């Protein structure tokens, strides 16, 4: 369900690290909770983001949900396809539906994030299943 190579937060974001770059997205659990996603508000390239701080938002038909950056760094790329096809976040939350790529300022932050197994356990406890 949750890919092993991602690192997760309790706010339901993930980061996939390759070299000094982290791709960031929201989890399958988050997209299911939100429902049909119709709008994604992302930080511009060049924006400095901080771990745990709001960096954008994802909106479904019904609700707005803040995105908290799982890591600190500088935005180097945004997933521009989402401007016209935000539903890709629903269809592929862990791959095609990534939101931004960040040049990591503090790679050791990754160690404090949840593994797939821990995140899955956390979600199960949250939902009481």
């Amino acid at each position, binding site marked *: 369900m949750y890919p092993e190579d991602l690192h997760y937060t309790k706010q339901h974001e993930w980061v996939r690290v390759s070299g000094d770059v982290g791709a960031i997205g929201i989890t399958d659990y988050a997209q299911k909770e939100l429902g*049909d996603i119709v*709008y994604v508000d992302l930080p511009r390239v060049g924006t400095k983001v901080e771990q745990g701080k709001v960096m954008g938002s994802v909106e479904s038909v019904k609700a707005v949900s803040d995105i908290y950056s799982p890591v600190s760094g500088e935005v180097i790329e945004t997933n521009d396809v989402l401007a016209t096809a935000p539903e890709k976040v629903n269809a592929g939350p862990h791959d095609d539906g990534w939101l931004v790529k960040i040049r990591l300022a503090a790679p050791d932050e990754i160690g404090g994030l949840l593994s797939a197994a821990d995140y899955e356990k956390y979600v199960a406890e949250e939902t009481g299943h």
Partner: protein
Amino acid sequence: MAATATPLKTTALHAIHRRMGAKMVDFGGWDMPLQYTGILEEHRAVRSAAGLFDVSHMGEIEIRGPAAGALTDYVTTNAVARLQPGQAQYSGLLYEHGGFVDDILVHKLADDSYFLCVNASNQEKDYEHIAGANRFHAEVELASDRYSQLAIQGPRALAILQKLTPDDLTPIRYYHFMDGSVAGIPTRIARTGYTGEDGFEIYFAPEHSERMWKDILDAGQEFGIRPCGLGARNTLRLEAGMALYGHEIHASITPFEAGLDWIVKLDKGDFMGRAALVRQKEQGITRRLAGFEMMGRGIGRDDYEVFIDGSPAGWVTSGGPSPTLNKNIGLCYLPADRAKTGRRIQIVIRGQPVDAVTVPVPFYKRAT
């Protein structure tokens, strides 16, 4: 989970909603389906085929006796005297100060019998309000426990429901109803709705709910019917420009402000709230409901602030994406002299003013 003081109320179809995997939501104290498969898909099903909604949380109030018409007329804004048996009417229950107690549907069964459909979370308040005004000695009953209500809405609603009844539904005109049967169950069949499409709202005894629900879904399968939740109900009614209690209308909003002049018949004789409305008509309203469409990127949502020329001017009552129009739309209160269509306004989205323009309501009108 947040602790709640009182357990949520449920409809007779609660177990079915759970079994069908609906995502449930607390709607004014009721545990109701928000969506089954997705709001967009359900919304589109209603615009193109049909949708089935459990709206059994809605309340029913019956007014009976020789003075039933007099009481109903006195507590509502629309002209009850103009109703024929078998006819329904959208109307307002007002306080003496002219604000809304609720917006309701009045059905006339006979000269001595009226059937009111009222909002779920207002039903006790409505009942107390009506009973408190009952100097006519009519019989007033809060009858919600005796009814389940389903809404079957969309261009195929007639064809689907017709399969399940020996009664000819075609002659039932918009805002008319008949007492007949559906799936062999005695049913009040009203050609009313809250989606902007053709369709029916049906009332029947709760013990038949599961069979009624299943039979309608089965009959509608060949037409593409979908079970729908309150999420789609809200996007559909917003496109149709219909008011939602607690949003466009509430205790400090009058029908004139809400653009509901057509449900107020000042010439019908005395009724609750009339004096205040007459006064407001003389003085003119200071704020008015207006439709808007986002121009900039972003979605104006419920309770967001509205600015005109850099100054606070009003608030959004309902806002969100319009699946049919593929735009972001909404309703808002503006100063009455600035509510004309075509005006540039700004919706404050997370601290940032984003351009929008006022547009005519309804946003969507079905081809007839």
